[in-house]
């Protein structure tokens, strides 16, 4: 990991509050692994002070791509960055997805959680059968569909809460059945907390190898501030930034 001054190549508004950003980041792009994230400055002044964490969508040296949603003041400011703007980043940060071979993998993405999931496709699809369930509120929240279509996935199932695309319902609605029908060995999920909780309570007893990639508000991103902790099943706290963001699902204390 390093502090790197990146150059904005593209910061494209997709729809609603979603953006696709391409950054020139020589160091980060050549050292990143699927699952890693970066901390990106929201301003070149001290307000807002904290950098924002973003799961990497793809690293194609010397570039990285990010897929993000405006959720507050920081991401709002980041969305105003223009090509050739310079922006400070720290990365690559965090652990990465496990190496897997000859497995049937079910990847579950909720909303902007598709970003790190997408980054893992290339590695996983070369030696595994990869299934994807991708869900969001509505059709407009279900971005990157064209990119996903180019990936050799075994099966893609889309869900929207309002039924505007794919099946109507929550992303977790049929997970259990899909795991059983397709003899899935491993699940890897990324999305909002409610999705993880529902997933945990639906599939935990199937005794599969389950991984989650967590999102958290972070102060530093490299283990210093201890601000991004998550409670574990063992009763202590782990840092999402350096112990994660990828955890075994059973490691985390999921509330009912």
């Amino acid at each position: 990991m390093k502090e790197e001054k990146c150059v904005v190549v593209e910061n494209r508004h997709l729809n609603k509050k979603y953006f696709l950003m391409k950054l020139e980041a020589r160091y980060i792009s050549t050292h990143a692994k699927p699952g890693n994230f970066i901390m990106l400055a929201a301003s070149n002044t001290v307000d807002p002070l904290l950098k924002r964490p973003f799961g990497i969508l793809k690293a194609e040296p010397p570039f990285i791509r990010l897929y993000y949603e405006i959720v507050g003041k920081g991401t709002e400011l980041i969305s105003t960055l223009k090509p050739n703007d310079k922006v400070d980043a720290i990365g690559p940060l965090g652990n990465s997805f496990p190496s897997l071979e000859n497995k049937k993998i079910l990847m579950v993405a909720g909303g902007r959680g598709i970003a790190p999931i997408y980054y893992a496709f290339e590695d996983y699809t070369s030696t595994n059968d990869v299934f994807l369930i991708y869900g969001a509120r509505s059709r407009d929240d279900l971005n990157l569909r064209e990119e996903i279509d180019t990936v050799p996935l075994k099966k893609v199932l889309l869900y929207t809460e309002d039924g505007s695309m794919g099946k109507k319902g929550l992303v977790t609605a049929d997970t259990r059945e899909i795991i059983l029908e397709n003899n899935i060995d491993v699940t890897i999920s990324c999305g909002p907390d409610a999705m993880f909780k529902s997933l945990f309570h639906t599939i935990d007893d199937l005794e599969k190898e389950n991984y989650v990639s967590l999102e958290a508000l972070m102060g530093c991103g490299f283990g210093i501030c201890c601000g991004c902790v998550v409670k574990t099943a063992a009763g202590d706290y782990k840092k999402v930034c350096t112990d994660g963001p990828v955890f075994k699902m059973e490691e985390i204390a999921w509330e009912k």
Partner: protein
Amino acid sequence: MGKVDVDLSADLGFITLKNPVIPASGCFGYGEEFQPFFDLDILGGFVLKGIYLQPRKGNPPPRLHETAAGILNSIGLAGPGAKELKTIIKRVARFTSTPIIVNVCGETDEEYLEVAETFDAMPEVALLELNISCPNVRKGGKCPAQDDRHTFRLVKLIKQNTRKPLVVKLTPNTGNIVSIAISAQEAGADCLSLVNTFLGMAVHLESRAPVFKNLVAGLSGPAIKPLALKLVWEVCSSVSIPVIGIGGITTGKDVLEFILVGASAVQTGTINMVEPCASVRIIDEIESLMKELKIKNLNEIKGALKV
């Protein structure tokens, strides 16, 4: 053009640091986390995250809340305990010769003493910093730094039983920080560091709930700099021992301002979290600014505020 040589060294009396920049406790981990970013040898010193005798889990999340040019934190001094920290210090000391400062915590005076004695015995440790802002379990959560007599008693106890120079870290969350500073000096403190975070609060309007389970949290970052500068000025005007200024420092200019009001050195806090190489930049900025203002050494401006 003649080469201007500037001397960045910071003299605390009992130790001379190569420069006045010391990353503060809680904002620099145990030093080793910054190894990938820069060579720790460039620092004046660094303070390790506050340590109690036993491992501590810390507070439940949320632990952070961003405010205008600052952050509120309620981490709860999570840490590995004194035994594990000894191992960490031995490891860190192998790759840097920069003075290592241990921030000593305790829930009781006895615990403070035991922690202080543990690290007083380590040759790898240069100084002890006594964090007298820890809630005391026998005083209903009140910390020693909120009571002159308790501060005096605790500092004296530590000084009588340890040999390393003792820095006493003060909190701004007290009625009269100057009288606490004087009590610490009278009890034998070698140096003071101030200030710790300011207590603040954040609430959720929608749910009408406080953000933090503890209701209040510590505010740090550039937002507190003017408040800290005033308290450092007041304390420096009232004590004769050296003072390390802390509070929202993010630039070399900030450092020189704290020295101008009387500080001998400074600690940098929150900026280390958001800009890991901040120390490198700040030290460079001090040097450039001293050259620009024709300040040959820090003693020239220390406490030189014209009032």
